[in-house]
């Protein structure tokens, strides 16, 4: 089913919108959640919660990209759940993702105000646009979709260590440009 048809179902308050969403996006959303939580049961719950959240928010929302919209919801729910588990020392996948992203944190000390969330998002979007398509996709497959380096390696026929090195350079580049721009987190 086309995304526009699914969104139309949400807008008509037709409950088959949930089934259509689960059918089309269930696997992708589960994958995103699982790479953060490393637990199938928790991931399943996050996917259910994400579908319910979509039901609550569409309308009034009318997403341009249903993938991005649903993916964001499941990422947010999953990372929050991960934090809860982290507090209980039951953490899983996001530990690695966050640790890698920690390398992007700029080391500059400035008197500037902290960049706000929207500005930081816009900055990272621009930085991604400035990357080659291949690098942009690699970065987002790893840090948005949460794909493991191994699975990307299998999919692309590239050695995992090469991809890890490339991701490292991308993280360093993001850090450097943020430092250059005097961005403080």
């Amino acid at each position, binding site marked *: 089913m086309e995304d526009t048809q699914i969104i139309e179902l949400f807008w008509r308050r037709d409950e088959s919108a949930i089934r259509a969403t689960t059918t089309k996006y269930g696997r992708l959303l589960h994958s995103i959640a699982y790479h953060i939580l490393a637990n199938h049961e928790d991931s399943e719950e996050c996917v259910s919660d994400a579908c319910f959240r979509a039901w609550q928010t569409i309308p009034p929302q009318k997403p341009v*990209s249903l993938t*991005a919209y649903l993916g964001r919801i499941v990422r947010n729910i999953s990372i929050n759940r991960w934090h809860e588990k982290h507090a209980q020392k039951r953490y899983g996948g*996001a530990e690695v993702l966050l640790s890698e*992203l*920690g390398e992007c944190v700029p080391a500059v000390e400035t008197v500037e105000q902290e960049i706000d969330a929207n500005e930081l998002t816009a900055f990272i979007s621009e930085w991604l646009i400035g990357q080659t398509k291949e690098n942009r996709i690699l970065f*987002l497959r790893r840090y*948005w979709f949460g794909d493991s380096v191994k699975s990307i390696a299998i999919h*692309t*026929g590239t*050695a995992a260590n090469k991809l890890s090195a490339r991701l490292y350079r991308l993280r360093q580049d993001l850090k450097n440009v943020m430092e250059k721009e005097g961005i403080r987190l």
Partner: protein
Amino acid sequence: MKEKRIFDAITDVRDDLIEEAKSSRMNKSRPLWQKVAILAACVVLVVAGILLVPGLTKEDSKIGPLLDVVYPEVYAFDDYETRMAIRDQNPVDDAFIAAVNDFSYRTATLLLSDDGHNKSYSPLSLYYALALAASGAREDTAAELLDVLGVPDNETLMQQCGNLYRLLYHENNIGKLKIANSIWLDHDYRGQPVSFKDAFVKQAAEHFYASSHPVDFAQAETGKQIAAWIAEQTQGTLNPEIETDPEQILAIINTIYFYDQWVDRFAKKDTSEAVFHLVDGSEVKTDFMNQTFSSAGFSRGPNFTRAGLTLKNAAQMVFVLPDQGVSPYDLLASPDLTRLAIEGGDGYNGEVIWKIPKFSFSSVFDLKDTLVSLGVEKAFQQDADFSGITDHIAFISRIRQETHIAIDENGVEASAYTKIDYAGAAQPQGRAEMILDRPFIFAVIGQNGNLLFVGACENPTQ
């Protein structure tokens, strides 16, 4: 937790970027040709006829290939260890490489003549087709073929061809070099049976990875069957019309299919239209790819400047720009001059400015006269000795090569090792302007110096 802020910011990046990453799946689902920088294909068709020898018993025709082949295992393009292991397991003698190159330059000089057309010739493809024929030749016929191929005996030829085959063969998500051979055998000549030697079929499969197919050359369908095999081996790049002849009993076909990506791709945004000056003084407009390397190697020789672009799978494409007023064919006038243009000259390091017209063209060569002029005569005569293939009197009636070549901007998009080559570069010793806006020579050189393709571009819009 600062990394959590980055995580959240990434969560909200623009929708179109998410869509791009979702649909692209790291380009596995994209057809490979979309990323190809250079694509070249070649087919050589060797046709053998027969003289009727009555009195032999008729054998039953078999359906399907008599003998199919299993190609060498493929490996990832950055699997350095496997590549080195294959190199160790398949030693190719320097003398053999020299023989193949000598053959390449001798034939290229004869075939790349000034006829006003673009030309691309694959010496390696012709070499393999002739080597396969030579492996079934005996006596004087074999001696002439081995002489032009530059090897002392058939045993050496087969062993070295097999090793070189395995060394060159690769297929990965970046590029491909596949040499495919096949032999097509007609067991019936005007109602009389024709038998072929099992040993030939077996050694063809073992050393040349040649599949064998029983056919009836009196049927038009056979031509279509062979054309379909060629199209399959060259991924549809070549779709020749194959005419068969009832007098024919054997066809040997060699194809080479090659594509790869520039290590340093050309940015599409830098491609722009400009003028290309033709030999006759007229001009055409065409798209030129542009790129500048601040530190790269180039060579200068008498009347030319040459520089190369590296391809991901260890091959290289070199471009030879004749000096103003010099024709490419002046540089191809003899095997020695051709070799000098493609390999020789004095090496320098410095800034290299590239401006290369995009081109895509096909060539057809009838090779019989060329080979006769190099001393291969017996193989074309009715008293040729191909008794290693059949006890009937068989001879080569026709050899034809068809090629296609195309280049564009694509390469790996600024990957990690794109710029590593320049680290620690030598002090600049000058500057080369590879502004290819007039007829030029190109060559695609394999990992151990074999000429896969060599040609001249007279008009990139042809």
